[in-house]
């Protein structure tokens, strides 16, 4: 069995996680013991903690090590993902605070829970054993369930939290079941050992079959977290029911962690079974793109619409993994980055419309926005066009990258299906633009945005255009991770 040996010098490689854990604990204590008037600084401390975590992770880029007896891996992919997780979370928390404060939901547990789930993601990103991965996943998920339920006087939020919890538990159970099958066959929890076992040429048919079964369960666990059809049922309900700030958090950063889970389990671990899981992903991807695009057409709630739009974006991400080549994986990661950037800006624009006693979550709440506040309308316009895949915004290049990889691996039909549904989905993005630009306001619009939110949202929107004009660096970065 495994031989656990521990070397104090290895701690250097887990600095981001260690720091974040320490920060969470101290912020928790801080919040518990300081006077009421200082409690507002919990938010700032959380942001600072995230910033430092991100910097620490950034510092580790280029290092590579497998530590703690092979249960924890540090590589460029992991460190880069951690930097992005921290960075995107900072943006998300800026937007969240505004939403929470206008709706009287601003409690400091919110930030601590968010930090906790981010810690889970960091562990997941670096997990190199089935156990570490599962541990990270559960830290993340449990914090997220609680995060949704922080709006405890909203029935919809509680419903969403419960749904997410129950279904998430089933998915975790399935994932665990798959892990146990793989452990049973390979006798190992270590991803590297599993990989070397799976690459043996002398696998018995029975062994292959059970590995395959385990693989199916793993794929389902990952697909659930990503929200791919047919394991997407929780997505619209949870997105709609959760407070918008949580929806935003849920739809962005955890997707990156889920992609990391996918990479660790399936690419690092079972890449010899690539043609098996690629086939599964192909079905999931096509279904996701189709269902996401078609059902979103009929939505009037913008959070629900964005939920379906997420599902269809996830379909594109999976297409990148179908290709089975490193550039393909890189394209998927680039797509996730682009998607998160767009999704953050979209939810940021929704949050801007919220005010005390008014929950903006209908598409019609955007009516006449372009006259009232042209700048936010323009940002939303950019986001929607980008999501629809119209150049010169980042969403186009992420689709281009995926399609290029898909076509280069010979799946021209897949590319054609994807672009047809991209056109269909353009319709509902256009609906938002139409509502903002072509319709007149039928009720009062109040845009409430403190300076920090305004600044971050503007930068976020401009990035969608600027990275779109110069995507080269980011594409290179994404491919270099593999």
């Amino acid at each position, binding site marked *: 069995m495994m031989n656990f040996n521990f070397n104090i010098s290895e701690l250097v490689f887990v600095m981001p996680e260690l720091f974040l854990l320490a920060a969470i604990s101290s912020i928790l204590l801080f919040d518990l013991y300081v006077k009421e008037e200082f409690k507002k600084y919990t938010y700032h401390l959380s942001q600072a903690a995230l910033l430092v975590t991100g910097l620490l992770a950034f510092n580790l880029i280029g290092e590579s090590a497998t530590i703690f007896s092979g249960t924890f891996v540090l590589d460029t992919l992991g460190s880069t993902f951690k930097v992005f997780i921290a960075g995107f979370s900072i943006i998300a928390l800026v937007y969240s605070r505004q939403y929470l404060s206008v709706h009287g939901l601003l409690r400091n547990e919110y930030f601590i829970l968010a930090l906790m789930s981010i810690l889970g993601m960091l562990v997941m990103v670096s997990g190199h054993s089935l156990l570490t991965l599962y541990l990270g996943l559960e830290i993340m998920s449990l914090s997220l369930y609680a995060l949704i339920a922080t709006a405890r006087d909203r029935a919809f939020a509680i419903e969403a939290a419960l749904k997410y919890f129950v279904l998430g538990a089933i998915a975790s159970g399935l994932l665990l079941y798959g892990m146990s099958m793989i452990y049973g066959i390979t006798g190992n929890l270590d991803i590297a050992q599993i990989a070397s076992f799976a690459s043996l040429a002398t696998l018995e048919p029975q062994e292959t079959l059970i590995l395959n079964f385990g693989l199916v369960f793993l794929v389902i666990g990952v697909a659930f977290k990503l929200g791919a059809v047919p394991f997407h049922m929780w997505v619209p309900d949870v997105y709609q029911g959760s407070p918008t700030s949580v929806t935003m958090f849920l739809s962005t950063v955890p997707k990156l962690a889920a992609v990391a889970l996918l990479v660790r389990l399936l690419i690092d671990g079972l890449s010899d079974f690539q043609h098996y899981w690629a086939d599964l992903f192909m079905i999931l991807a096509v279904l996701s793109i189709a269902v996401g695009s078609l059902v979103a057409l009929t939505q009037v709630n913008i959070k629900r619409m964005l939920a379906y739009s997420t599902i269809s974006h996830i379909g594109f991400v999976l297409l990148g993994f179908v290709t089975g080549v490193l550039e393909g994986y890189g394209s998927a990661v680039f797509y996730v980055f682009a998607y998160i950037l767009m999704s953050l800006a979209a939810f940021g624009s929704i949050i801007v419309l919220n005010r005390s006693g008014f929950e903006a979550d209908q598409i019609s709440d955007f009516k006449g926005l*372009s006259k009232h506040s042209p700048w936010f309308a323009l940002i939303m316009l950019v986001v929607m066009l980008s999501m629809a895949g119209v150049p010169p915004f980042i969403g186009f290049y992420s689709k281009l990258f995926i399609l*290029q990889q898909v*076509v280069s691996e010979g799946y021209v039909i897949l*590319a054609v299906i994807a672009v047809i549904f991209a056109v269909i989905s353009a319709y509902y993005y256009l609906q938002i633009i139409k509502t903002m*630009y*072509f319709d007149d306001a039928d009720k009062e619009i109040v845009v409430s945005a403190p300076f920090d939110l305004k600044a971050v949202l503007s930068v976020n929107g401009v990035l969608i255009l600027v990275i779109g004009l110069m995507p*080269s660096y980011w*594409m290179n970065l994404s*491919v270099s991770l593999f």
Partner: protein
Amino acid sequence: MDSLLSILIWLPILGGGSVLLIGNDRGSLAKWTSAVISVLVFILSLNLFLDFDTSTSAMQFVEKASWISQFNIFYHLGVDGISMPLIILTTFSTILVIIAGWEVIQNRIADYMAAFLMMEGIIIGVFSAMDSMLYYVFWEASLIPMLLIIGVWGGQNRVYAAIKFFLYTFLGSVFMLVSLIYMYNLGGSFAISDMHALPLTLAQQSWIFWAFFLAFAVKVPMFPVHTWLPDAHVQAPTGGSVILAAIMLKMGGYGFFRFSLPITPDASSYFAFVVIVLSLIAIVYIGFVALVQKDMKKLIAYSSISHMGFVTLGVFALFSIMKMDSNGELISIAGASIESAYLGLEGAMIQMVSHGFISAAMFLVVGVLYDRLHSREISTYGGVVNSMPKFTGFAVLFAMANAGLPGTSGFVGEFMVILGALQANFWYAFLAAMTLIVGAAYTLWMVKRVFWGPVNNPEVNSLSDINAREFSILAILAVAVLWMGVYPQPVIEVMHVSIANLLEQALTTKIPGIL
């Protein structure tokens, strides 16, 4: 100037951005800024014409910089005799549009001007991109300002028209994207010139041809994918209609010249008959449809489709006129003269430029009436000549040009295409020439009902004749229409060598093995 094309692209786009910043509250400043920028861009674009070397088919004013390195995508610009006239047409039309919107647009004036300026830059980008991905980016981006122009400043049914316009063209172009990516994976380059040289089997060419065809046919538009055009034109504000008809339709025609013929020559030849039939349907069928329109803008929109049919006819008639023999010499088929192939292609180009002038003029004419009585219905008017004699003079001139009267630009292009088509097949020419009858019928009938005859509507009597601003726009266009009609030589000279090169490319087989 080394970076003339970049300036032509980015000056209007950034200028549009600054006009946005000026804001709707300072409308007059926004208007003057836009006018200055558009005139400046036009003057700069004239340099393209003046410094143009007519003796070579190579790309000129070339700029190249690395853009997206992992896909070998370059920021690569250049013009030849085919794209240069279209760029000047673009800069020319933008000035007209900005002046035409001067007093008419009251609502969000700065946004309006900014949209047209950005549109100008983007379309110049389409015509000068030498890298297919750069081309595609500009091509798709051009939808955005037009979507907003139709949707924000359009008529009653603008939402439907704007979204239909966007989705129609978007659907058409995504297949082009897939085929561009496909060719990139074969040849490892997105450069258009590399795609020209890429050997492709007939099956590959056929798929690529149809993907391109869908994109370009929607834009041109050709029967049966033309139905977005009447809606878009009718709902768009006058300026939007002008840009749509004068320039955006040309993007489709340009696509056939730049992509379809040189990249898929064998498939183009193989399917030429289908395209010719569709063009003839457009010319005749749409002509009859135009005849019964009660809305002036719709009538002109349909007549646009009919006239653009000549472009595709002129392009694809080529394959019934010439072929390449086994020694690589161009020879004619069945006694047709080599010149008639040039006639078809150059006629198509002239027709694009001329249609740019005439359709712009026709839409402006309708715009002048619409600004006064807020009606596009033919039946609202009648006897306009009594109160607006100067205006009627211009209107009748443009109507004659639309009907293809010799001496106007409308005649030259159509006549050249018909002459070319005659060499290909008598019936092509016969059906195409039908338009001279039907076209005259619908145009003159409209003129008769709107400008002449009894005054049905008392308001018509109180119409004021065109002011200096309107007069100057229409006068400039009248000069352009007549100049192209009498002396098209400079335009033909500019494109001749490029056309010769294109002809060579279009008739050289790319099928490996036969090469």
